[in-house]
């Protein structure tokens, strides 16, 4: 009679259709407009770079799962997103072997060395980018000029500094003349693959927000604090400091604010924590941009704040404990 094979598990017996895969692939989808834009602006080289980056990330993930004797999850989407983000963070003419090295740093050193998905303290794509920047400063700051639909494989591309680079070395006037705000918004400027087109990035971010995968606390507090800080100094001395709108459309601010700082694993969970995180990132970004040695500060800012996240979480934890302690005493 007992022809059925019963299984015992715990309630609930229905689950939502969400999974790590659905979250990750949706993030990848949100980055699609920026990727498409990058191919439009920088040509086939951009596509090749992106594909190589993603494939090497997935390959390293597979390798690490095997080495650590864990069930293989290289296709769960997290390696794809890391690869995509890293690709969008580097110039289109970066040598491919550097891209693969970046993938190694991101997946092996930053993610798996800390325990794998969910355990990393630092954003893998950002660590890889910063590693490449510090190790190969020339290659990482030689930004090609956008040439729509170019099939040039970067043999001799016209390159130059990014608008922020010009701002750092030549001052406000030179920077403003190199770029019109509209160009900045649409992306017709030098920069990494993904950071140039503010429009494409915003479109993707709105999609993520609609699907409730990111909340706006971090991006808005981050961008808001950059805006206010740079705006303050621009008011004080417009000849030395560029306008806040210039800062909005240049560099990796939008990419960083909406896609890197909001990475779930490395950002705080509480609203208060997220606002603080965004504020901290924004202030550090602005400080580095205005007075630091590097023209772009968002990567460093986010990484520094990543290291503070466990402290923020502990602050929330202690608050919860204190609140419950109080409640337990009064009842």
């Amino acid at each position: 009679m007992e022809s059925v094979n019963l299984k015992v598990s715990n309630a609930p017996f229905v689950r939502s259709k969400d999974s790590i895969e659905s979250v990750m692939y949706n993030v990848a989808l949100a980055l699609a407009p920026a990727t498409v834009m990058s191919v439009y602006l920088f040509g086939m080289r951009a596509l090749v770079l992106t594909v190589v980056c993603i494939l090497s990330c997935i390959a390293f993930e597979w390798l690490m799962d095997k080495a650590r004797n864990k069930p293989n999850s290289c296709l769960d989407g997290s390696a794809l997103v890391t690869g995509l983000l890293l690709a969008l963070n580097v110039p289109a003419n970066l040598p491919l072997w550097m891209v693969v090295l970046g993938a190694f740093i991101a997946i092996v050193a930053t993610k798996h060395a800390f325990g794998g998905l969910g355990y990393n303290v630092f954003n893998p794509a950002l660590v890889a980018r910063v590693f490449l920047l510090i190790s190969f400063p020339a290659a990482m700051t030689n930004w090609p000029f956008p040439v729509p639909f170019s099939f040039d494989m970067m043999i001799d591309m016209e390159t130059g500094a990014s608008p922020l680079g010009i701002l750092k070395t030549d001052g406000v006037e030179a920077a403003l003349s190199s770029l019109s705000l509209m160009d900045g918004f649409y992306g017709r400027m030098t920069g990494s693959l993904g950071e140039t087109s503010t429009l494409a990035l915003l479109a993707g971010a709105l999609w993520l927000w609609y699907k409730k995968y990111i909340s706006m606390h971090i991006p808005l507090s981050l961008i808001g604090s950059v805006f206010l800080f740079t705006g303050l100094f621009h008011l004080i001395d417009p000849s030395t400091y560029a306008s806040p709108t210039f800062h909005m459309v240049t560099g990796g601010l939008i990419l960083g604010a909406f896609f890197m700082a909001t990475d779930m694993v490395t950002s705080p969970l509480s609203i208060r924590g997220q606002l603080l995180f965004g504020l901290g990132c924004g202030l550090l970004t602005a400080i580095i941009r205005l007075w630091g040695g590097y023209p772009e500060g968002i990567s460093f800012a986010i990484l520094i704040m990543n290291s503070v996240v466990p402290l923020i979480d502990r602050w929330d934890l202690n608050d919860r404990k204190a609140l419950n302690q109080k409640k337990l005493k009064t009842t």
Partner: protein
Amino acid sequence: MISEAFIPAVASLGSVALTLGLIIFYVSKKFHVEEDPMVTIVNDILPGVNCGACGYPSCGQFAEVLVETKDSSMTCPVGGTDLAAKLGDTLGITMSEPKPITAVVLCQGDNDTARETAEYLGIQDCWAATQTYVGPKQCRYSCVGLGSCIAFCDFGAMRLENGLIIIDKDRCTGCGACIPACPTGVIVMQEKKAERYVIACNSHDKGAATKKACDAGCIACQKCVKVCDDDAIVIENFLAKIIQEKCTSCGKCIEVCPTKVNCILLEEDLKEAKQKKAS
């Protein structure tokens, strides 16, 4: 040219290191905590496992209290009689000898003998399983077989084999850490004996119910009670139990036990016992 960069760097870093080293040396001397050297000696003799079997949270604490009180009744079950002798020599007192004890799993219901309920797909932990339902095995007194106790053993004396926990008698020190780890209470501490007979079943179900749940369960048929000349076996709540103090290890009970797999166990490996029964 090299020396231009070399010498200042080495000199500056070297002097910083030297200064810091001197500071550390000074601080370690000034803020040194006075400790009875005997405590350090005793602590070095102790096994250093910090298992808690002696009743103190760590070997260090045991050493401190022992040196302070010279209480000869304090025992370390892990170190056994050898350790008691060494401690006694060191402190100049006669330490009481700990009774060698070992943990015993009162169950023989492995995947072959115990009947299954349904496949358990929750958190693979014995407590989690018994909280959800009776467990993967029909007998609610059995060893659940998911191995949660293994992590509690500091001595690596436990392993999971075919859905049943096996305790390595040579490694078990009787520290007792595994006992709170078991939700069904199937692990007990017993004195180590050369030839120890124990009824390896924990089921208080009536005979028919026990038989239905497991081939290796005690059905309280009382055959062993009748054959024992030393009155060493009693039936408590449908389960036979051997009173170790009265048992003379004559082996008569093991011959009359009707359950398929020997549920009266010798101080031997399970495999050997099965082979003996088979031959």
